[in-house]
């Protein structure tokens, strides 16, 4: 029979330390006990989790079936153009973006970035090849895709160097959005010779820039944070 010198409670004969304060039990008279005579079992029951790969496989098959059906319908029955290619391209884009990462245990972020960029560029190119007439649209979309992709790559490189706080990540995302919006507006204007795109780009860039400044200010000022909490509590 052991008592905790700290809590004054009697401890079970199998206890190696006090369950209340973790004070170790030092009692030379205690003989070792079998696991069966401990009050609680040592076996922990943790349910098996459903495998990610299995779910990804089921989703892939579910996505594949309507695509095959539509392809055959397009080839043999409703032969008005290659409309099924739209569905195929969109499905492929969704699959690469959301389902493919689940197939690997830990996908390398650069590999994932490469696949996602290719899938997005491929989707836009396919859609343009089927119905596009003006080459400036294709050029603009591919350039904007490349810009967005580049900014994502920069974010990945920067955040992988060391663990960044979520506030720093938010600031960088807003900064990148500002730059990408402005450059996209500029590029589309160059290709289309329509200045309204530049205006739209500048407006979006200004908004994200203001948002970024406000976020930095809130993050630094405790008073503003307190006022926001007070004024906008739910």
């Amino acid at each position: 029979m052991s008592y905790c010198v700290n809590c004054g409670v009697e401890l079970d004969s199998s206890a190696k330390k006090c369950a209340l304060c973790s004070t170790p039990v030092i009692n030379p008279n205690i003989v070792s006990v079998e696991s069966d005579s401990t009050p609680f079992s040592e076996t922990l029951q943790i349910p098996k989790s459903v495998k990610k790969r299995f779910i990804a496989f089921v989703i892939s098959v579910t996505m594949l079936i309507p695509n095959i059906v539509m392809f055959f319908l397009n080839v043999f029955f409703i032969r008005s153009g290659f409309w099924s290619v739209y569905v195929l391209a969109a499905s492929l884009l969704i699959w690469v973006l959301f389902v493919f990462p689940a197939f690997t245990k830990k996908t390398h972020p650069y590999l994932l970035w490469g696949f996602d960029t290719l899938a997005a560029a491929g989707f836009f190119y396919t859609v343009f090849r089927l119905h596009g007439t003006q080459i400036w649209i294709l050029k603009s979309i591919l350039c904007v895709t490349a810009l967005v992709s580049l900014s994502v790559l920069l974010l990945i490189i920067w955040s992988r160097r060391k663990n960044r706080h979520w506030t720093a990540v938010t600031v960088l995302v807003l900064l990148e959005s500002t730059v990408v919006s402005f450059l996209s507006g500029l590029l589309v204007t160059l290709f289309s010779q329509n200045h309204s795109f530049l205006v739209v780009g500048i407006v979006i860039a200004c908004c994200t820039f203001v948002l970024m400044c406000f976020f930095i200010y809130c993050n630094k000022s405790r008073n503003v944070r307190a006022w926001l909490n007070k004024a906008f509590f739910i």
Partner: protein
Amino acid sequence: MKIYSNEKKGFWLKLDNAAKIFPGQNSKTWSNSFRVCYELTEKVDPIILKQALTSIMPRFSCYDVQIRHGFFWFYLEKNENTPDVLPDIKNPCHRIKFNENGRFLFKVYYHGNRIAIDVYHVLTDGHGGALFLSTLVAQYLRLKGAKIPTGGFVLPIDTENTSAELEDSFVKNATSKAKYKRADKFVYHAKGTKMPSHTVNITSGIIPFDKLHELSKSKGVTVTEFLAAVMLQVLCKKQLREVKKQKEVSIQIPIDLRRTYNSETLRNFTICLRVKVDPNRGEYSFDELLEQVKYQLRLQKNEKELNMMITANMGIERNLFVRALPLFIKNLGVGISFAVTAEQTTSSLITNLGAVDIPEEMRKYIDKFIFMPAPGKVNAARCGVATVNNNLCITFANVYKESDVERDFFTAFVKMGLHVKIESNRE
């Protein structure tokens, strides 16, 4: 009186009023289940235990069931499988998945001298669980050669369920015309480091019942009121240590309604009362806490007040709009409301099963009875209390790594001069 057997073709049961919310609260990591456990004086033989379980199952038609989805409500129907006995696990009240465990909603475990049952709250409450386990243990002892008569919590197994045992007593007793206002504030929750999913820290303290009863009697309160006051004191002190801005501390105390309404049901028939104190009004001494608990609890614990609460609960179930909603929408609503408000209005829970009444011939084979509630989601430590053979066993289920609530609680009794023995699954 009608006799019911689930051997009859087409046997099915509606979920009782309290049970209706539990399936909606179910998640991948948590279910509202509780554990009742007998510690015997001898090591348990699993083969005989299995035989005992098989022989008592026909007596408990309402537990020999599986849960099914209807279009509007869940329902229970006869389970054709045979329940199994399993070696005990370190993390009791493990989450219930409806298609596991032969679709049974309870699990029978054995370990060393212990026979335990984890019961999903859809089936019954602590009283029903204790009846089932006591009958199982009595049958186990009979098969081992002991002569155990029926009586108290040990039911005769050669009879069949009566309509009174299978009734939803909430429906029968919801007759109040008064309106009940639910106006509970969000209260204090003890802080701590969460245990990983599917794990729980259990700490049992065994206290001599006669000494505690004497002590509580000298203060003019019941044992439950005394324990609730100790718990309130522990949580108030913990809050003072943790935060500057003090919130109300509230303790949930489930009350068995069987005696009040003369019910024999084997299904859920409890209602949760709350006692609370606001530390902003000043520091409460232990005697003041005892008074607060005593008056608050006794004010709520009368037939008219309880009837009003039951009727309010039944009102939701009887609402035509609610009834017409498909089950998945009801589940979604229950899940969201549980996540947002349920445990937010209580700081902890104390559920006292009271003295487990077993035949005198059975007492010599029994060491103690353990009753453990489901671990909370945000409630730090919830505790269940049960007494048998003068051993009052208080069991905490804690989802936090820290054991300060349990320590403060049990050392309070040590300081009062009571002997406390601790058993735990902590490493």
